[in-house]
């Protein structure tokens, strides 16, 4: 029997507002422990929350980008549970009346757009940060003490819940890349998994391919990169298939993904079932977004990543288009092409050389980049690499690099090639014995000896000729 994974995602995004969700403490990384706190975010007796208007507007903006219905009336609710990182004994969140619901996001694929349902996007406050110390294992269970820093507590979080519409780990990863790019382009969050400003939990189940039943699902937490998300889901899908095929039942459980081992560890079952006793937050009043505000925000929406992928895939192919768009590189690519560069060559330079060199695409002049793309084959590789690395510098000009010609004179290169072949008799024998992949090794040696000024194509032609002889 073949199996189909059924995956839904729950995504938490930390908004980059200047202040917290319900108090005006500054939000930011790197401040001293507990120095960005006040009676409200410490849960001191009598302190009361006040809603951050910008956080509400940004959530609406995101909801619009996800094609959601924006609530006529949204209500904050208390989610009650005890944890050291939750100073009030409840989290202010939204429950039955979220700001945004019933949306969708299109994920372009080779077989058309996949439509991923967005169940809801709501606004809530983040928990504080707890450090566990004194334990033998370094894990929460073995720690003797928890140390609490409330700086992060109260930071605005948008929680996005998808429908269980994703059917493979790759699809989940692709969806997340697109979602992340959308969020970044809206300017509402850095959405960086490593920094924890984007956090993803996955709900996973499997079913016989072709059926539409929904079987018991499990939850995977603690995956801190897109690659780990795909791997974690993959591992869980395989585990569940094995369970069903062994004639057993999948149990509803929560797992932590351990990136180091690639293994899933079940969390110990809680002492009692979750019962969050949600009720409307009486310290806050409802939010009823003004329709004019909603329409103004809708008008401000930029062209979204999925649409841009569809627009440029004809020129580049789907995969390259996705890489450029989800990397935030397509605008630079577009302008570079408009400045005269070849579309495919420009795509490769932007997606590979520029990214490898860590250049901020925002700082690059498309005109100068187009010149470099055009001269790529002609100028020495060192010159090209150096030019790429300096593209982001203010006032960068490609012209001095274009003036540097690569050494393409066979007569000049001939003695050097001979000397290198003579110095590596074993590799020469291996090449001639069929290991043709060693060509790159020889090219590399020549490039090194010439400080990268030799024309690599001329060098490889020459090498091939000599090695054949």
């Amino acid at each position, binding site marked *: 029997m073949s199996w189909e994974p059924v995956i839904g995602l729950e995504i938490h995004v930390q908004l980059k*507002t*200047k*202040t917290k969700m319900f108090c*005006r*403490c*500054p939000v930011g990384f790197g401040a*001293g*422990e*507990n*120095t*960005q*706190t*006040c*009676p409200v975010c*410490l849960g001191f007796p009598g302190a009361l929350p*006040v*809603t*951050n*208007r*910008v*956080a*509400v507007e940004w959530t609406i903006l995101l909801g619009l980008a996800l094609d959601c219905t924006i609530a006529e*009336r949204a*209500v904050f609710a208390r989610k009650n549970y*005890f*944890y*050291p990182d939750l100073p009030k004994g409840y989290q202010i969140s939204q429950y039955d009346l979220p700001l945004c619901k019933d949306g969708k996001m299109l994920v372009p694929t080779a077989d058309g757009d996949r439509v991923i349902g967005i169940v809801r996007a709501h606004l809530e406050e983040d928990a504080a940060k707890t*450090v*566990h110390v*004194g*334990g033998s294992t370094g894990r*929460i*269970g073995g*720690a*003797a*003490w*928890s*140390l*609490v*820093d*409330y700086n992060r507590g109260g930071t605005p979080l948008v929680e996005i819940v998808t429908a269980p519409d994703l059917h493979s780990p790759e699809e989940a990863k692709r969806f997340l890349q697109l979602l992340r790019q959308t969020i970044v382009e809206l300017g509402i969050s850095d959405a960086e998994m490593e920094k924890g400003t984007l956090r993803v939990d996955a709900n996973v189940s499997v079913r016989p391919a072709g059926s539409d039943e929904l079987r018991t699902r499990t939850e995977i937490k603690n995956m801190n990169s897109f690659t780990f998300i795909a791997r974690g889901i993959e591992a869980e899908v395989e585990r569940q298939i094995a369970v069903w095929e062994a004639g057993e039942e999948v149990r509803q459980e929560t797992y932590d993904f351990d990136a180091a081992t690639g293994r899933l560890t079940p969390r*110990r079952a809680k*002492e*009692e079932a979750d*019962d969050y*006793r949600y*009720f*409307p937050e*009486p310290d*806050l*009043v*409802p*939010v*009823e977004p*003004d329709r004019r505000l909603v329409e103004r925000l809708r008008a401000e929406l930029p062209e979204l990543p999925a649409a841009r992928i569809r627009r440029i895939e004809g020129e580049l192919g789907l995969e390259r288009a996705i890489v450029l768009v989800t990397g935030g590189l397509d605008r630079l690519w577009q302008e570079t092409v408009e400045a005269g560069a070849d579309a495919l060559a420009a795509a490769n330079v932007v997606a590979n050389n520029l990214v490898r060199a860590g250049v901020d695409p925002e700082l690059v002049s498309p005109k100068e980049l187009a010149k470099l793309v055009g001269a790529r084959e002609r100028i020495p590789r060192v010159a090209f690499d150096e030019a790429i690395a300096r593209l982001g510098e203010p006032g960068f000009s490609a012209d001095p690099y274009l003036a540097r010609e690569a050494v393409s004179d066979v007569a000049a290169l001939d003695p050097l090639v001979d000397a290198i072949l003579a110095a590596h008799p074993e590799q020469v024998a291996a090449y001639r014995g069929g290991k043709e992949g060693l060509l790159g090794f020889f090219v590399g040696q020549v490039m090194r000896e010439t400080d990268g000024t030799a024309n690599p194509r001329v060098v490889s032609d020459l090498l091939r000729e000599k090695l054949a002889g």
Partner: protein
Amino acid sequence: MPISRDDVLHVARLARLALTEDEVERLTHELADIVEAVGIVAELDLEGVPPTSHPRGLVNVMDDDEPRPPLPLEDVLANAPDHEGNLFRVPAWRQ
């Protein structure tokens, strides 16, 4: 709906109250009486009546996203029963 001892224990767990045996006993009776008394709200057919969570109909009370100074650290920690450096300290979560 009568309140059982198990209900009391369950609710005490949710509310994080380590009740003594005497308290469990007493609260089982008291809560049963109170719940019976307040349970008469069930007599009313309130189909279609909107709930009130706030006695005045205010909406959209929000604040600008402009930072104000946080508390000085000494005030943050002034009442802490236990702290280590600038961090609040509490025995770890029991798994």
